[in-house]
Every structure is written in structure tokens, then in C-alpha cells.
């Protein structure tokens, strides 16, 4: 549901911005001249980007953004963005770089310049009560499992894994139903589940299965910024090579996801 909304918004934005002029000057030069890099990050997506006790931006992505600033030898400035405006901010030049939990899609690539390789990824997993005895997707057979109406993995959960699906319209209803014991687990995006597991009220819950239907996240620069793109591409490769993202995941209490582990193996091998 979230993804659908986001991709529809992205598509609409894409149509709006097709005629927008592309940046002419090299943003790398501009950043160095200014002495500051402006990065769009999330402030509402724990643990990827959120606010600390004193209102400072912390999380995995702000830390990565600071690393970029350090490599460029400049200061950093954070602009909080949300899913609905992050690509516009980049297009309009209000931010130089966007690291904001954005799933990489073909529609979005038309709007912004998503840097390869992808730096992160999220897929489908379960938020399950501890001790229900589920360790593989196949264990869901005939169990009451909560979901969000319209999510693309609902059918698979029912058809392939045989779960007895109970789907609500929003996450708040689902989480309430889960806490009331109306279902044993919630099938949803693993990044959302990771965020919940950080909160004390979900201490009795876990993510018991392997993530499926993985889709990569991309950080992005504006179209036409080829120098900056090349620079960021190398930075991401270096993050993967040195295992920086895995270290950050551990620092923020997230079990390193298969994607980051795989990328680390790939890039550290050659």
C-alpha cells in the first residue's frame, strides 16, 4: 500500500518534471565553494533517520551523510524530507544529495539520478510474537496472520504459505490487532518491522523468517550531475567494501540484512 502510493506519487511527479531544466553547473564545485553539503534525510523513520533526544538528526542514513561530507572535506546541513517531497527537493536544488529510504524503481529513475550500486534494500518479513513456533514462511499454514489491505505480498502469503490472512486498512489497526492477539504475526516491509522492534512495547516480538521479495533502496543526486554521481558511486562501493553499513546496522540495533552482507562479500572480494 505504502509502496503503491509512493510509486504513484513518483509517477505523477515524473510527469510534472519531465520538462524541468537540468542543473548546469557542477554541484561538486558548488558544494566545495559553499563549504557545506545539503543532504535530504528522513527524520521519522527509525532507525534509518530519526531525531535524537536533543532534536539532532541521528540514524544510519544521517551517519552516512556525515561520512560523505567528511570525504568532501565540507560541513553538512540536513533537510528533513518525506516520501512525498524528497524527489522534488532534489529536482529544485534545495538539497544536493538525498539519502531517504527510497526504494529504487524505474519510474523514479526518470525523475532523479539514482546512484548505483544500491546502498540498502528492504523486503517482506514478519513481526511475530516470540514463541509462536514460526521459523520459516511455510510455518504460517492455517495461522491467523495480520496484513495491510492491498499489499502485493498478501496473495503469496495466502496462496503459497497458506496463512489465514486478516487484512486491515492501516498499520495502526494492524498493530492494535496484533497486540490484542487477533493474529500471531504481521506480514509487512522489514524496514518498518525493524523500526518497531527498537521500541520497548515490541520487546516480546521478533522477525523470525528470512526476508523475501527484496527491493533495493537508492540514494540519489539530480539528473545531469555526472561528476557527483561518479563520486557517490565510489563512496557507496567503499561503504560496501569496508562493511560500514553493516557496522552501522549493528550500532543501531538492526540485524544486518542479507543484502548488506552479500554486497560486503561481493565488494570486499575484488
Amino acid at each position, binding site marked *: 500500500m505504502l509502496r503503491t502510493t509512493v510509486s504513484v506519487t513518483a509517477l505523477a511527479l515524473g510527469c510534472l518534471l519531465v520538462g524541468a531544466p537540468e542543473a548546469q553547473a557542477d554541484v561538486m564545485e558548488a558544494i566545495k565553494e559553499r563549504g557545506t553539503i545539503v543532504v535530504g534525510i528522513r527524520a521519522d523513520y527509525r532507525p534509518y533517520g530519526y531525531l535524537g533526544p536533543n532534536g539532532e538528526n541521528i540514524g544510519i542514513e544521517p551517519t552516512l551523510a556525515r561520512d560523505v561530507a567528511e570525504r568532501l572535506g565540507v560541513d553538512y546541513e540536513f533537510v528533513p524530507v518525506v516520501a512525498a517531497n524528497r524527489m522534488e527537493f532534489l529536482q529544485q536544488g534545495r538539497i544536493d544529495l538525498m539519502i531517504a529510504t527510497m526504494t529504487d524503481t524505474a519510474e523514479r529513475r526518470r525523475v532523479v539520478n539514482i546512484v548505483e550500486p544500491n546502498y540498502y534494500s528492504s523486503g517482506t518479513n514478519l513481526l511475530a510474537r516470540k514463541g509462536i513456533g514460526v521459523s520459516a514462511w511455510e510455518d504460517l499454514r492455517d*495461522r491467523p496472520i495480520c496484513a495491510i489491505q492491498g499489499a*502485493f505480498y498478501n*496473495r503469496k502469503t495466502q496462496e503459497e504459505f497458506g496463512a489465514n490472512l486478516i487484512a486491515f486498512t492501516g498499520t495502526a489497526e494492524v498493530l492494535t490487532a496484533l497486540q490484542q492477539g*487477533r493474529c500471531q504475526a504481521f506480514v509487512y516491509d522489514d524496514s518498518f518491522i525493524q523500526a518497531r522492534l527498537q521500541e520497548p512495547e515490541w520487546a516480546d516480538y521478533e522477525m523470525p523468517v528470512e526476508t523475501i521479495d527484496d527491493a533495493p533502496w537508492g540514494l540519489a543526486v539530480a539528473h545531469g550531475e555526472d561528476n557527483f554521481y561518479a563520486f557517490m558511486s565510489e563512496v557507496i562501493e567503499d561503504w560496501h567494501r569496508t562493511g560500514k553499513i553493516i557496522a552501522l546496522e549493528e550500532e543501531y540495533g538492526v540485524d544486518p540484512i542479507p543484502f548488506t552482507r552479500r554486497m560486503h562479500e561481493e565488494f570486499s572480494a575484488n
Partner: protein
Amino acid sequence: MDVIYDWFRQLYIDHGINLTIVYDRFDRNRMLGGLWTTIKLSLTCLALSVLIGLVGAWLQGARSVLLRAVVQGYIQFFRNTPPLVQMYFFFFALGSLMPQVRNEFGFTQPMIDNYTWAIISLSFFAGAFNVEIFRSGIEAVPKSTVEAAESLGYTRLQSYIHVVLPLAFRVCLPALNNNLVNLVKTTTLAYAIAVPEMLYVANQIWSDAVNVPEMMTFLLFAYVALVGILVWVMRKWEQSMALPGYGR
């Protein structure tokens, strides 16, 4: 059957009309399940709401002030709140206060499930209207008729069942029809608490197959048919109860 399935599959390929509920076995079974849930939910709520209406209208004429106040309070509560809000309230707020039972997996869960809450909420919602509908019929029965029954030794309950109700029914059937038709359509709200009725199933199918216009059209026709059957039955009933010289 395969010929039909292939024809619908070809319809999608040739004309882009994607009726997965015909040719896709999983979607077909889901939709049949949804249709069955809608029918079960509708019939149960129809019966219960009429019963609530009858009892409520009877209690409205009770001598006890307390009883009358209770009925009035019930009507105000259910008639003045949106059924969707009631559904959420019952399921999430009231449901969590109910006793817990241990399920087959060894965990506790609330005793009353979403389907039962939907029945309770919808029946009481339509029932509140039915009370008032029956009252309109009861008040249309001439006072002299009731007095005649009393003079023949009928108790209040006897005259209610044998004299007042049969006449009142005939008067209020058109209004009752309206309310029951509304009730069948209101069952779609149960999707909010995850009761797998037709709208809930259609919503999931059009999310999977991206065939929103087809499923919307199907839903409309399905409800036209369901309500059509109900109206036809009610019409037959009305005709069979017609008294010469009374009403139509």
C-alpha cells in the same frame, strides 16, 4: 468449464478486460468465499435486526419508565453514530475488554471474533431503525382495534402478537424494505475489521491484478443482484400478506 475460462482469458488478451475472478482459480475461490460471507452476514443481520426491531417496539410501549428509557437510549446510540465508527469501537475498543480465550496455538485471543462483531454491530444498527419503523406501523393501528382486542380479553402481549403486529407489519413493510436493503449494502463496512466479504475480497484482487474498473463493475452488479433478490422476496411477502381493503 475450461472453455469458459479460456474465453475470459482471451477477453483479457484481446480487449484488456481482466476478470481474474472467472479464470484464475485462486481469485475465483476468494470471490466465491466473499460472496458467501456477504450472504451469510446479510441473512443473519436481517433476521436479528427484525427481531430486535420487534422486541424494541414492544418494549417502547412498556409500562416501566426504565425499560422505555433503555430502548430510547439504545436507539439514540445506534442511530446517531456512524456504523463504521461503531464497528471500530466494538472490535478494537470493546473487543479488547472482553474475556480472553486460549486458542489452538496456546495463545490468548479475544473471545469475540471480527465476524461476530460485524453481526452484532450491523444488527443493532439496523435494529435501531427497525424499532422506529415498527413504531410507525404500530401507531397506525387504530386505537379502537386495540381496545376491541382488550375487550375480548387479550393481554397486552397477546394483542401485540395477534392483532397489532399483523396490521402494523403491513403498514411499515415499505419502510422496512428500505432499511433492510440498506443493511445489505452496509455489510460492506465489515471490510474495515477484516471480515472477508465481497468488498474486502475485491479490494485485494484489484490490488493484485490491477483491474480496478472490472472489479468495481462486478461489485456493483453483484449488489444489484443481491438486493434485487431481497426486494423480490419482500415484494412476494407483501403480496401474500395483502388484506383486501387494507393498504394497497
